[in-house]
Structures are given as C-alpha cells and as structure tokens.
C-alpha cells in the first residue's frame, strides 16, 4: 500500500515556492556553527542519504516525523544542518521542523554515546528505587540525565515507562540489553560490561 500523507506538497506548494525564493538554503547550511563532534561528519554524504529518505516519502511534509525518525537513525541525532535540509526538501520552514524536533522527546539535538543507557522512571520503577538508580548512574558517569560522557562512551536518558513493570527498576542499554531489578550496588558491574 502506498504511504498516504495529509497536507503534502500540493497543499504547501505555494508556501514552498515562497521559501525557495527567499532563502539560499545551502548558504544557511554552511553558516551553521559546528560542534566538536560534528567535525568528522561527511555532510555531503549525509545530505545525499537524507534526500534519499525524503524521496521515499515523495517529499510529503505529512511524513515529517517518519523522516526525522529515519534521519536520526542514520546520523544518531538531528544536527541543525540536517534539519535545514529536511525543511528545504519537504517544503517546510526550519522553524516548523525545529518545533517538531523539540516537541518530541525521542528526537535528540545531541549525539548519543556509544552505549546509550535508558532508565525507566515509570510509576512501578519509581516506587522501587529508580530515582536512586539514576542518581548512582549520574555519579558514576559524571554526567546528568540527557548528556553524553566526554569520551563519548555513555549517554544517559530517562524514559517514562518501558512496560516491564514486574521487573522494576529496569535499565536498558542500547535498546537491547535489559537489566531487571537492578540495584545501586550493581551499577558499576553493569557499566563495566561496556567499558571496552
């Protein structure tokens, strides 16, 4: 079945034309200040892939969230430069793209660590000590929730419910390895597994 969007290029056609007349998008992209972790990115290659993703959705602005999911999968996060590209190709303004990126908690403006730790802070995990677990992880990693360690090895995120309440408190690494009923004492062992 074909993907079907709402809105879409036809509805927004006029607006797209307006933006294209007003802004030199490549210049906007080039002017972005880049952070350290962005220096190694091959932007041309990334933008080419971004265009491919968008083509799969026929440039439908109603598929913005799907596009952002796929782009984030590709780059690891959503750098400004990529947001500009997405906006351009979908016929949206950068502010519209940015407003969606910042609205949803799964979209990230910063790269994640090699090992991404998510700790559940759902109700059941909370009453069983998730908060202490989070504090211990913050202490041992030396970062706050939402950040990445300076060596890029670990990042820490809190989610609202992984739906494994019977196993709480629960932490998950790289969306694969689940650590159930984890206690503060077990944190260093858990991190050790990913040190190398």
């Amino acid at each position, binding site marked *: 079945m074909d993907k079907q*969007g709402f809105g879409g290029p036809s509805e927004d056609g006029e607006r797209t034309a307006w933006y294209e007349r007003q802004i030199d998008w490549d210049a906007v992209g080039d002017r972005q200040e880049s952070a350290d972790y962005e220096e190694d990115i091959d932007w041309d290659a990334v933008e080419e892939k971004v265009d491919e993703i968008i083509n799969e959705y026929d440039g439908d602005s109603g598929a913005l969230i799907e596009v952002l999911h796929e782009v984030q999968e590709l780059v690891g996060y959503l750098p400004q430069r990529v947001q500009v590209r997405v906006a351009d190709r979908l016929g949206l303004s950068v502010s519209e793209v940015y407003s969606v990126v*910042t609205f949803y908690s799964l979209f990230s403006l910063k790269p994640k660590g090699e090992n991404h730790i998510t700790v559940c802070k759902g109700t059941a995990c909370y009453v069983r000590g998730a908060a202490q677990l989070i504090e211990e992880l913050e202490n041992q990693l030396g970062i706050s929730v939402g950040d990445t360690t300076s060596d890029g090895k670990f990042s820490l995120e809190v989610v609202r419910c992984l739906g494994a309440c019977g196993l709480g408190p629960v932490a998950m690494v790289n969306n694969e390895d*689940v650590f159930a009923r984890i206690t503060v004492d077990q944190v260093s062992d858990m991190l050790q597994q990913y040190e190398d």
Partner: protein
Amino acid sequence: MVTPHRVLVCHETPCVARGAVGLHAAFRREIDRLGLDHVSLEISGCHGHGLCSQGPSVVVEPSGFFYNGIQPPDAEVIVREHLSGGRPVQHLFHRDPVTGRTAARYADVDFFRRQRRVALRNCGRINPEKIEHYVDRGGYGALQLVLSTMRPEDVIELVEDSGLRGRGGAGFPTGRKWRFARRSSSDVKYVVCNADEGNPGAFTDRSVLEGDPHAVVEGMIIAGYAVGARRGYLYIRAEYPLAVRRVQKAIEDARDKGFLGSDLLGSGFSFDLEIKEGAGAFVCGEETALLASIQSRRGMPRPRPPFPTDVGLGGKPTVINNVKTLAFVPVIVDRGPGWFSSLGTPQSAGTAVFALTGNIRYSGLVEVPMGTPLAEIIDIGGGIPDGRKVKAVHTGGPAGGSLPADRLDAPVDYEALQELGSTMGSGGMLVLDEDACMVDVARFFMDFACSESCGQCAPCRLGTGQMVRILTRIATGRGAREDLVLLREVADTVKHASLCGLGQTCSNPVLATLEYFKEEYLAHIREGKCPLGVCEVRASVRPGEQGREFQPGGLPAGGVGANLKGGCP
C-alpha cells in the same frame, strides 16, 4: 498416532529480558536432535500475566502444562521427559513463590483462575506472528459474519447494545461514537487506533498488541465497516518496537489472506491499515493531539467541538478508539451484546484490564468483570509482600487518584471511581504499601504532568510547574500550612481552566491525596521533613532539575513546549 504438542515460549519484553530467546533456542536444538515431529515450537505473547517477574514462562498445549522460571538446561529435560517420554516434569512446574504450591496447569494457577479473560483471550495461547493460530481460535469469524450478514447500522446497534465504553479512560460509549462518525457526511472517513500508551505504569495495550495483534486489526476493520471508513491508522508509541513489529506482520498477513485490501471477502467493502509511530509525547494520547501528531505536527490538542467524529484527520470524520476497546469488538460480535453486558455492571459493561504494579506480589495483567472490588484485585495479585499492609491504590495514572485502604471495597466502574475522586484510567493500577509517602506520589505524578504539558495553555503550563514547586517545598520540609490552601487553589484552577484532558485531569492525584491523606501533608509541614524519609532521598535526583531555575510568571527557558525537555522546576 502421537498427540501433536505445541510448546509456547513467551517472547514478551519481560520474559525476553530474563532469557526467553536462549530458552527457545535450547528447545529448538533438543526437539530437532530427538527428531520430534509431533512437537511444534512457537513463540507467544505474555501468558505469565502477573508472573512476569518470574519468567521466562513456557506453556505446553494441548493440556496447558505450565513451566515457569526455567533455564536452557531445563528445556532439555522437558523435551526428553515430557514431549518425548510423555511424563510432565513436576519439579519444573510453576511454583507459587509465597505458598510454595506447584500448579501443573496454566488454569490451576490462582492468579489466572480468578480472572475473566476477554480482551486477553488469546494472549499467551497463540503465536501472535501466525495468523493461522488466530483463525484457529475463531479469529476473523466476526468479520466474516459482519460482512456477510450485517448492515453497518446493525453493527453500530450491536455495539451500542453491548454497552461497550472506551477503555482509554474517558469511558465514552463506543457505539455512540461510531454513530456520530457514521452520520457525518463525507466521502472519506478514518478509523484510528490509539495505542499511545504513555501512562507510566500501564502496559495493557502493549500486551494486547504484542500478544494478539489480529484482534485489534479485526476490531478496526469492523469499525471501518460500521462508520464507512476505508482506511485506518494505528498510532503506536515508538517506545514499543516489538508491538510495532508484531502489528506490522499482522497487517501484512491479514492483507495476504484478503482480510485487508479491496473488496474484502467479496463484500465490496475495502479497507486497509497503516502504522504511524509516535515520537515520545504523553499528550499525544489526547485525541486531538494524536491527530496532529499523525499528521507530523507538534502534538498540540485543540478545543473540542468540533469532535474528531466530525473533523478529524485531514479535516475528515475520524473515529479514535483505544486498543482494548477494539480488541473487544470481535468477541462482542461473536458472542452477542447480551453476553458482554452481562459481564459487568449496568453502567459499565464487560471486563476491565489492569496492569497491576507497585508493592504487590505479582506484577502483571489482571482482567476482571467490571464491578469487581479493588480489594479483590489486590487479592488476585497475591496481596502485599513481606507482611506489610496496603496503604493506597492508585488507578488512572497522572489523571487518577489514590484511594485509601478503607475505600478498597469500591467497585471497578467508571462512575463509582469518579465519585471517589479517582478514575478508571487506561489500565494502570499502582498498589502502595505503608512505606509509601503520598506527598511523594502526588509529586511524582505532578512532575510527570509538568514535563509532559504541551505548554500551549497557561493554566496547565504554569499551574503544573507551580504545583511541583509547592509539593517540593512541602516534601523537603520547607512547607507552610498556607501552602495547602494555595495548592488546592492552583489545582482547582488547572482542573477547570485547562484546554485539554491532560490539564483538566492532572490535578486529580493532588486533590485525591489532599482529600484522603491530608494528615501526611500536615506531618511534613509540622515535622519539617518527610516522616517516612522518602521525599528527601528522591528530592535531589529528579531529571531536569539540575541547573535550571524556573522563571516565575515567565516561560521556561526555551519557550513554549520546553516543559517537555525537562524545563520543569
């Protein structure tokens, strides 16, 4: 001729976390090694509802022998002794961790025996990735009946007669909603399944989607036929990747079998489904926000009316139903509306599914007839561990309230719970023992509401932040008696002045604890600390707290909507 056996290894999130994949592989190896042709090995959704903390669990059909908490070496024993030798392995049967009693069969386990499983009828009994299993258990029979013998109006009447009400929390009569959408004149209409189960501590929708996805698909097709829609969307949380995968497979298989696509079963009716993934925003469970999100916009609710049944996706009439609501539909068609309504109370028909969590012996899913007292559900869950006493039961998550121990005779029923200041909610039931601090509980939910507020309307954006500040002040021993007056005032304002359901209900946890546990608030203020020592421990570690100062009267740093990324006080 040897009786065919089917081995079902649970492959839901908790069991996978406890080694179900390795266990499945061990079964495979041993079955192949012994060349047992009469044994089929399958994965299944959750059959250990309530026993998830003791998995991985395995059921051997047709007799329903139930092994739990077993390891790969045990698989070899079971294959050799039970499947090959015909001697079930007693010492590996599920053993109740409390009474020590073993239960040989699934149906003997107390936890299941006392339930009435309707929405969960197939969970754990079939391989959710095989459409044949669903069909074997009568699946898609309702659809065939509907398409061959009923007019759309008949279907709506049948659902109205059954008394089915929305299981997302609000409890709006499903049949009436369908009728509104049917009446809306438009050539294009949509059906949407709301599977944005963001309520922390609820996983009922996930379990249905992972354990019996075809029930939801079938329910949606019937809904589409009833209202005159040709297309439907399932809006599923991106945090549920397994559910997304299973539903995707179900859609494809249903399409292959002719249950989805054009001219279904020769009826002339065409219908197809597509999944839309969320991106992590609790407010998208609110129906108008959900519609915005499906269309790739910020999930901002809008005022109603117009209701989605008139103006929904792309401006077209749209019916939005919860996962469990839709999963009920095929059974109601199969067994008749009278059967369904006889299960519950006059006002609340059918069964209720709860995710039982917190200080309870068996965390997991419980399905009971409406009208069952809360106390009985706790009892089914094995009570409170370690000889402690129950202090409160919280239903409805951030929109609900905590009821004290002396109100647990209250029946599970939309109106009864609402009258007591709680709500049915979408399926979360948190049990708290005497070590829980109710101020902490209120603060947990308010913190949640604050960070999930979309920031669009002032009462919710600012009010939730102010309530978190007041609650934190009280929790950390810096509160004054006047704070309670202020807290109630802010709570009432947010409740009455907010735009959408999130704002209108998020005061409930505060109001209910003020009603039933006021003494605890006073004790914090009087003693200058948390009497149970709970609040201090947790005060320092809330995410989003570090290094951010709330600007009274102003927007959180980052502007509107920044609440979502941890801009709360």
